[in-house]
Structure formats: C-alpha cells, structure tokens
C-alpha cells in the first residue's frame, strides 16, 4: 500500500508552499494558454515567451491542488531558458515518468499536441529533437510517487499538457508573424 509520504515528498510541498515563476507575462509577445482538469475544476494558466527557438521566460497562474501546483512550479524551473526542443523532450520525459498509468486511464492518448509535436523528427521545427533519455528530470523525479495514486496523475500532468499546447501556439505564432 503506497503511503502518503510517497505522494507528498518534502520537495513537492516546498514547491507548493513557495511556487516558482508565479505570475503573468505581457501578451504579446508571450502567449497565454489555459488548461482545465474537468474532474476537479483545477485550472492552470501558462504564460510563455518563446523567441529564437528558446523558452525565454514563462509564468504560471491559476489554482489547484498541491500536486498540480508543485508540478507546474517544478516544470517552470525545468524548462525556463531551454530550447523548444529541450522543453519538448522534458515534457516527453516527464510524461513517460507518469505514462504507464496515464495511457491505461485515458485509453487513447489525449495529449496528441505534446507527443505528436515532439515525436516528429525535428520536434515540430523547434531545432533538432533531443532524445528524452538525455533529459535530467532532477527534482521532478519526486513526482514519481504520483503514479501509485492513479486519480492524481491528471493533476501532475495538467501543467505539462498546457505547456505543450503553449509551445505549439508560440511556434505557430512565430511561423505566421512577419519577421
């Protein structure tokens, strides 16, 4: 039987109590994307500033439980300053950390935006694809305990799905904007 200490690791509680990169960014240049968890009403807002194929800055808004909030906070720390391809590889790596149960829960993969965009060669125009094995998840590994609490996986992945959508939108915006 998994215990609560597997779920609520100290580092998770730290990110929950002191969330990193909370706030907003001016749009444009940033894009603003919202993610909802229809089961519990949690919502995440990601402000994402992508330029030169790099996540120059991002901010997190919205409200949710400790798992969704700490996951968002750790995600923001993990992808800020990374290239788009690295960010996508981090999303992939995080989802595979969560994946076994997520696919079983969802049947069809509802995260087409993220994995679809990332699995194509070249990572959807974000520079050369980065193999996920090369990604160091660091603090994010603390969220591994979530897989033992299947209903909470959606909490942990909410911000990541939102980020994936944000990367798509930012790349679309830069592809269509006159340079």
């Amino acid at each position, binding site marked *: *039987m998994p*215990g*609560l200490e597997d*779920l*609520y690791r100290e580092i998770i*509680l730290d990110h*929950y109590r002191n969330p990193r990169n909370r706030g907003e960014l001016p749009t444009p240049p940033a894009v603003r994307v919202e993610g909802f968890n229809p*089961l*519990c*009403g*949690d*919502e995440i807002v990601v402000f994402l500033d992508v330029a030169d194929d790099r996540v120059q800055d991002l901010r997190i808004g919205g*409200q*949710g*439980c*400790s*798992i969704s*909030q700490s996951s968002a906070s750790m995600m923001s720390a993990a992808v800020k300053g990374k290239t788009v391809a690295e960010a996508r590889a981090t999303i992939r790596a995080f989802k595979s950390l969560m994946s076994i149960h997520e696919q079983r829960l969802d049947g069809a993969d509802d995260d087409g935006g993220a994995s679809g965009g990332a699995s194509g060669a070249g990572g959807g125009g974000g520079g050369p694809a980065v193999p996920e094995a090369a990604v160091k998840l660091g603090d994010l590994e603390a969220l591994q305990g979530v897989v033992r*609490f299947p209903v*909470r996986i959606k*909490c942990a992945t909410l911000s990541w799905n939102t980020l994936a959508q944000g990367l798509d939108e930012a790349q679309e915006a830069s592809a269509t904007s006159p340079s």
Partner: protein
Amino acid sequence: MALDVELVKKDFAILDQLVHGHRIVYLDSASSSQKPAAVLDAMQHLYETTYANVHRGVYAIAEESTRLYEEARTKVAAFLGAASTREVIFTKNVTEAINLVAYTWGRTNLGPGDAVLLTEMEHHANLVPWLQLKAERGIELRYLGVDGEGQLILDDLEQLVDGVKLVGLTLVSNVLGTLNPVAEVARVAHAAGALVLVDGAQYTPHFTTRVAELGCDFYGFTAHKMLGPTGIGCLWARESLLEEMPIFLGGGEMIRDVRLDGFTANELPWKFEAGTPPIAEAVGLGAAVDYLLAIGMADVRAHEIELTRYALESLHERHGDDIRIFGPSDPEKRGGVLSFAYKDIHPHDISQVLDEVGVCVRAGHHCAKPLMRRLGVGATARASFYLYNDEADVDALSSALTSADRLFS
C-alpha cells in the same frame, strides 16, 4: 423511537471493513449510498428464484417476475404519495427523468423565446437538458440567485416567473445542503401559469416525500442515493400531463401495436418505458423503500438533523475559523450535506489525506460548476451523512483534518 445506528450498521457489510488499516468512515452518501443486506438479498433472491423478462411470458416465473416488478412500482407510488401507479415511470436515474421531461414535454411546449426558470444551485442534471434546448431552439433561461447563507433569493420571484413556462429546482442542494421552499415557489409559479419540476435526488432519501404537498408537476429521484441499486430512478408526474406528453424512447414495451406504417403507444406508465426495464433494480428499489419505511422516514430525518448539528458544532469548535462550512447554519433548514473549505488546503489534498485514515469524502465541483463560481471556489470537499453514520464518523473526519493541517502548513 430514535434510530439505532449500531443496529443499522450491521445491515451494511461494506462498512465492516478496514481501509488502509482503519475502520472505513463512509461520508459520501450524497454521491451514492451504500446498500443494506435486504436490498442485495431481494435482488439475489429474484435472480435465484423467479427471474424472467417482464410483461411477456405466461409461464409461472415470468408472471412472478412481472408481479415483483410492478409491486416495486406500487411501493414507490405509495412512498411518494402518488395518486396512482400510472404516475410512476421508472427511468435509469434522475438525470434520465429530467431529460425525459425536457425531450417530451419540453420539445412539445418550448420554442424560441419561451422561458424556463432554474436556480444557480442546480446540479448539471437540471441544467444541461435545458441548456440543450436553449442551444437547439433559443429558449430563454432565467436563474434564481443564491445568497451568502446558501438560500435562494426569492425577492424577485414574481418578476422572474412572469412569462415562464416551467420552473425547475432542486429540493435539497447537493453542495450547500439547502432545503428549498419548493411549495412556496410552486404556488407563485402556478399563479403565473408555469409548471414546476422538482429534482428530489437529495430529498427523497432523507425525508417523507409527498408530491401533492410539494405542489409540483414533475418530480424525479434516483434509487442509488436511497439505499437502492444503480441503474434505476423515477419520474413522477400528474397523470393528465403524462397523457398529453409524446413518447420518449421508442422500442418494445412502450407500444400497444406496431404496424409497418406506424405504431400506437402503450398506456401509462409503460408508454415511457422502452425496452427491457431494470427488473432486479426495481425489486431492489422496492426493498430499499421497505427498509426505509421500517425504520421510519421521520427517524431517518431526525437522525440527519442531529448528526448535522453535531458536525456543525464540533467542527467549528475544534477548527474555528480554519473551517468554512457552506450553506445554512440551522440544521433544520438543511440536509446532511456539508461542503467545506479548510484553511487553504485544496479539497483534493484534503480527501487524499482523509483517505489515509479510511475517511471517504468527495472533493470536486459536485456537478454544480455554476454554483462553484458563485461561491468563488474551484472545488470543495464534501462530507455527507446517512442513517449508518454516527458521531464517531464526524470525529474521525475532524481529527483527520488536523492531520491534513499538519502536513500542509
């Protein structure tokens, strides 16, 4: 005679178990109740002795199966105070009962510009069917608001009801516990020429239901919240209304005659029951009605008031301003549904920590997203009581909240 919880608990095998090494404390009956042995036995007995399809065979067990199915209807009719069994339609649940009204009465009587008055505290089951009609035919939806105590704001009722064809409201809110003054609303609605649909999902399990005294025209409830099985609910409506309404689903059972160029609908109540009905479930529901009546609805309700009073007092006493319980503060004016916010710990985290010690509460929006927005919260934690809960269950909840506090602050 007060309800003997210890005795009642013995009828619910599921409550006699450990979860994560702790006695299970089931506080989610507003979502779905547990089932006593009498209900399970009745269904098992049917399957083992007389099960066959209903209204078809002339052999002995088919006749007995039909008799038991229709006997369940008679029990439900008496339980609701209905004038006849012709007014009692079995549905899948209360959601289907409301949809039945929206599809048949609604699509006959509501067109562009026609108005329906609902309340801000409705369950999605009494919102979405009307929102569908709004999207489909441009009907107008109006809403009675909710005040800070969780009571309906009735000051503007007369203006709001003016020109409305149907008023739909819940008797007891599944989030706030509020017991709404349905008879009063029905009087004003009828004076304005509107019909009244009542969602009794949270009321019938705990109160003596008398549809005539409520003054409504349509009434729905769902068996699984009142000790019965899933898969069966009920729509009650006045016979004259049901006669006028077109059929709902088409198929077997609901017809008197079928030709290649047309059909004639069956008489009430079967006119609205297409296909093989939930036979064992109806028998289970009948057994649940018997079980509740043997205890007595007055005692069921008195127990609920007592336990709600104890919970409101003891939770406030132990947790002070750290706990915010939504809805009316007077236990007589509410059902045993307690939605709460605790410090600023998210309901998901609360229910996770509570689960660790066997306490089952619901966390989420409780299928009432518009009400959540009105309360200014994304979600709440909700504890709800039934006849098998006691003060020790409330104490377990209260102590578990203290552990949640220790973990998160």
